């Protein structure tokens, strides 16, 4: 695996019981770049994303065939600890899901269980600042996180994710539950976070994919149809299906 790859999948098949959701997916995720996964509903974007940090392990009766490499190791090797993988490959969900605890604790908890010994207040502050949330919440760090607005909650979830210093951040439709202003803030944030982290984002919003991503992969029914530089893929898609999808003819 080349050194400029954050992660890589090779011939990845995924099964929910007897149902195969992914077929021979081979994809490279560039380091410190944003990769967008697009495709119609049910094509397997979330499934692929959840394969990348072994979140699918939590669903009973699933099966993975093929490889997911992270730092030259197949994360599905039996000796790899999924807990460590999930710390190194963080995840932000479609619906903001902060812990029902204080804002402070939302950031601090992940760091604490991962053995963080440094200055916790400073960590909370930098994490919130990096997510452009500090100014809005600095006066109420002890308040319950659920009292924040949906957009603030989602930024808090991102702050929580970066507080444990991951290398890769997975985002599954992080703005689909948010208003346009919150969405714009998060998109801005993604572009900033790109400096330090490799980001993989699932989105249904073509403009969003075009705005934030460097690379885009188009999925259909569990197969990769086309993958390439975002500008290139949106400007001249090679496949007819890609063209039809990005021009809004189905999906």
């Amino acid at each position, binding site marked *: 695996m080349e050194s400029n790859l954050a992660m890589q999948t090779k011939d990845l098949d995924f099964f929910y019981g007897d149902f195969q959701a992914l077929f021979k997916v081979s994809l490279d995720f560039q380091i410190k770049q944003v990769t967008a996964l697009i495709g119609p509903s049910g094509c397997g974007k979330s499934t692929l994303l959840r394969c990348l*940090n072994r*979140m699918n392990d*939590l669903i*009973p009766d699933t099966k993975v065939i093929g490889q997911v490499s992270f730092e030259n190791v197949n994360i599905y090797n039996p000796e790899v600890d999924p*807990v*460590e993988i*999930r*710390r*190194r490959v*963080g*995840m*932000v*969900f479609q*619906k903001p*899901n*902060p*812990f*029902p*605890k*204080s804002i402070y604790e939302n950031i601090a*908890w*992940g760091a604490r*269980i*991962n053995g963080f010994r440094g200055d916790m207040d400073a960590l909370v502050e930098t994490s919130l600042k990096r997510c452009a949330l500090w100014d809005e919440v600095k006066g109420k760090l*002890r*308040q*319950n996180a659920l009292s924040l607005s949906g957009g603030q909650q989602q930024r808090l*979830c991102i702050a*929580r*994710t970066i*507080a*444990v210093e991951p290398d890769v951040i997975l985002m599954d439709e992080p703005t689909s539950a948010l208003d346009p202003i919150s969405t714009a803030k998060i998109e801005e944030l993604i572009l900033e976070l790109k400096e330090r982290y490799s980001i993989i984002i699932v989105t249904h919003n073509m403009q969003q994919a075009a705005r934030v991503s460097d690379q885009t992969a188009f999925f259909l029914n569990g197969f990769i149809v086309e993958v390439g530089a975002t500008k290139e893929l949106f400007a001249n898609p090679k496949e007819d299906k890609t063209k039809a999808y990005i021009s809004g003819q189905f999906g």
Partner: protein
Amino acid sequence: MSKTKTHPMARTHEELAALIHRRRQTGKVWQLAFYGATGIAILSLIVLLLNIFNGAFGFVLIQNEVEPADLVASGNLADLDQAGLIAIIEEYQSAGLVRRFNAEKPLANRSERELIDLVEERVVKPVIIQAWSLQDSIFRQNEIRAVAADSDLTTLTFRSWVSWEFVVSPQNPSPQFAGVRTALLGSLWMILIVMVVAFPMGVAAAIYLEEYATKKTWYNRLIEVNIYNLAGIPSIIYGLLGLALFVRGMAPFTSGAMFDPTVDETTNGRTIISAGLTLALLILPLIIINSREALKAIPKSLRESSYAVGATKWQTVWHHVLPASFERVLTGTILAISRAVGETAPLVVVGASTFVTFDPASLFAKFTTMPIQIYQWSARPQSQFRNIAAGAIIVLLILMLSMNAFAIIMRNRIAKERRV
């Protein structure tokens, strides 16, 4: 009627009106049925409460062996000083008895209150010769007063059979002096044992079954099915189990002989600890089922958010799932314990004592509990036992209500903490 129906569900005005009418009719019938059910439930509750209060309050006719008026001019013993009271005791009691009182605690050292109690009990000796129900006391007052006026040396007073005196007095062969102290302490001990044993065990089992057990293995499925079945087994069967397992099988432990060889051997294993463990077993399945439902109700998203920052399963369960479900776990547990407090049959089998006058001194003491006491009193032929049974029921109800109130307060407090 229109002949051209464009849509299969298109309807004329008349048809629509008929449809709505029919729907309203059905609705009315169901509504009536629900009102009826609620009404019957409320009615039975009222009848139950009335029945209890009917026995717990009412006029009593008291006959004194010696009238207080013969002892002190005012008829009020409290008007006498210490010396006066001692003089009365020495006058009316045999020399031997006075010596015995002095041996227990010198009369001169006793407080005025203690002396008055002694005079009441030993000299005045009030005896309730007749008691009336609350209903009679209200509606047949004239008759009752006539009866009272007919008999000499009696006083008619309105008595509340449930009183502080009743709560703190131990069991006594005479219903007039009997109290629920022994039974109440027995019940409280029992609650404590059940809580300490069944709560952690039940919650731990629920966590294992809900979070760790894979549903595929045959033994986990077996356990699961059996827990649901166990919850439905009649409680007397648990009594038999407790008798075999705790009273007989573990006698050296449950009789306390293991810790203190000089212990009273006649108790065998028929002790508080056996009873508590039996009831703990009885409600264990309930706690497990309730706690599992509570854990199940926690959304997947909370677990995922924890895993996503690199938490282990145990960290996820301990820091997020359990706190989030704790309100429900607590409610389920309190409900289960309330059930244990009310159980009678298994305790009879395990060997609750019929007559205990001493406070339970340890876990290895003979015991009785509130429901057992109520059962025994209500089975006695003398009518006054029915009065104290009613009084004991009120005490038991208050105990239950305060337990539930405690649960609600705890729950609100936890909910508030989680909200800040």
